């Protein structure tokens, strides 16, 4: 199975530059997701890989072979569209058989392979139905079967589950992952759903406005975001400007603009330039006003409270700005209460502030 490499891809629609110097590598048999907000260029990236869109510059390589100028019909990639893009005038069988027929596969073998694939995706009973009479989930399976049956070198997915209801989404993503592992196909998967992306990917690429912010294992992206953008994207809501004041007790010593001291574990490397500390709402401990003088203590008062179902979320006014904090159910604080927040050293992530 092959490795996909994108080298310094620039792509645009007309004068509108969408991708800038995009580098990406999808290793042999890996499942890599492109995660990013709407309009950041995920589909554009896939279209460049598939050959539907010609890059302005840069290269697309598969196993070292240059695919940049190769037309899509000679790439042998499977593409699953967000809209499914089933041929409405063909039935399920003919939709799935389309790619094999283009490859001049013998009639008997087309029959055998298509039926086999329909069995795999659980659509054998619908093989003669017109594709436009199928439900969303069934269409999705046909699209998947149609892409898989040609034994693609690379499988490309563009938000394949976004038109399905929540339950079916979870079921289908497990199925996609199972098939991908069963056929060992190198896969590039586009989504803007974090949970979906983290649950099925070997590696995740977080994209912002046509550039890649971070490329890493899902666990790392979640716990060690590399930029403020990624941090915000994966649920860090509190950010403070910090200055580094050296090490002590094996911890980074940091201080905020108002003099509040913080500590962070030394396993984190300190980015150059201005520093930003990022903390999740659920990482901050919330208690009644009581100062002990330890690092990571912030005084504040509750400005706003919302009920989350499991606990409360508070907006707390502090000298460092408004912070978002999640609290337990038992003794909810009321608006106006003065409180003390504690940021545990190992829950703060240090980022370079662009």
């Amino acid at each position, binding site marked *: 199975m092959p490795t996909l490499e994108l080298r310094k891809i620039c792509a645009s629609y007309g004068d509108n530059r969408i991708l800038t110097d995009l580098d990406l590598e999808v290793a042999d048999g890996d499942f890599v997701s492109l995660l990013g907000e709407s309009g950041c260029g995920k589909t554009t990236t896939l*279209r460049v890989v*598939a*050959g*539907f869109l010609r890059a302005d510059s840069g290269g697309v390589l598969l196993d070292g072979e240059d695919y940049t100028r190769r*037309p*899509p*019909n*000679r*790439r*042998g*990639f*499977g*593409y699953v*569209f967000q*809209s499914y*893009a*089933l*041929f*409405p*005038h*063909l039935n399920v069988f003919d939709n799935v058989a*389309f*790619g094999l027929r*283009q*490859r001049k596969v013998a009639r008997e073998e087309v029959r055998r392979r298509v039926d086999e694939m329909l069995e795999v995706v659980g659509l054998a009973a619908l093989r003669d139905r*017109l594709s*436009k009479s199928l439900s969303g989930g069934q269409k999705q399976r046909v699209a998947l079967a*149609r892409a898989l049956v*040609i034994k693609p070198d690379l499988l490309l997915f563009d938000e394949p589950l976004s038109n399905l209801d929540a339950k079916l989404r979870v079921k289908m993503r497990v199925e996609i992952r199972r098939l991908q592992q069963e056929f060992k196909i190198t896969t590039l998967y586009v989504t803007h759903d974090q949970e979906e992306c983290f649950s099925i990917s070997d590696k995740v690429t977080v994209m912002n406005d046509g550039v890649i912010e971070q490329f890493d294992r899902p666990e790392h992206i979640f716990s060690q975001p590399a930029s403020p953008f990624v941090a915000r994207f994966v649920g860090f809501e509190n950010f403070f400007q910090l200055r580094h004041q050296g090490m002590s007790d094996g911890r980074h010593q940091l201080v905020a603009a108002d003099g509040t001291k913080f500590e962070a574990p030394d396993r984190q490397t300190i980015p150059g330039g201005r520093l930003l500390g990022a903390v999740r709402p659920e990482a901050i401990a919330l208690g009644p006003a009581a100062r002990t003088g330890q690092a990571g203590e912030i005084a504040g008062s509750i400005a706003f409270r919302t009920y989350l179902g499991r606990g409360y979320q508070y907006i707390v006014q502090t000298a460092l700005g408004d912070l978002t904090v999640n609290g337990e159910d038992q003794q909810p604080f009321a608006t106006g209460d003065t409180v003390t927040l504690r940021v545990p050293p190992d829950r703060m992530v240090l980022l370079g502030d662009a």
Partner: protein
Amino acid sequence: MRYSSVYLLCVPALVLVGLLLAAPLYSTVAQTFGGEVALFGRYGAFFENAFNRDVFFRTLKIALITTVIAAALGYPTAYFISQAGPKWRSLLILCAVLPLLTSSVVRSFSWIVILGRKGSVNTLLMKLHVIDAPLRLLFNEISVVIGLTYLFLPLMILSLVGVMENIEDDLMDAATSLGAPRIKAFFAVIVPLSLPGLVVGAVLVFTGSLTSFTTPQLLGGDGSTVLSTLIFRQAMVLFDWDGAATIATMMVVLTLSVITAINMAARRLNPAA
């Protein structure tokens, strides 16, 4: 207002259609069976005449050729328009329908200027020494077909663009990613899916060409009489109203049968349409 009374709103239109379409149609058809002749006697008499037979088949031939040419010219044009950006698309559609805004008399006359002995085509070919003597381009079947094609091409383009615009862009990409070269993908995807537009266009062009009067009257010669000009002659020159009604009835039947045939062919080609 009770729901059923909504139907009352249709009454004026129904009265109008009844008075202006159904009634005259009925009296026309009835006239061909009236008088002292056998049941289909007037039709038999029409076809016994060799000149009439020629006119009948010529009319059919001209309408069919015009339809085929309009489809052949309109298809790529319509695809091009449907693929253009939204701004260009409106401009191109405007250009396509512009001829529809002038009267068909004026448009037919312009072809007399272009195709005449000293018209632009002959002048150009003479200047280029392609020919020595002017070609006879006018007042024959060719000039009628040219005039009709020009007249009805916009209808073909419009009905095709309407359908092609609604074909999902992803389908072409899907077909190519599955291994079909663009041209094959076009025939496997765009052609079958645009068939409904082709059917509507073909019906419009065919019925239009079959029944058009001005163009064959102005651009056709004595040797290219068609059914509509024949009706005119029967009614206005020979005052044979029964004969004119017979031809008119045949044209109605002819039009309906060809529309049915085109529809059936299309359904066979594409069961989903």
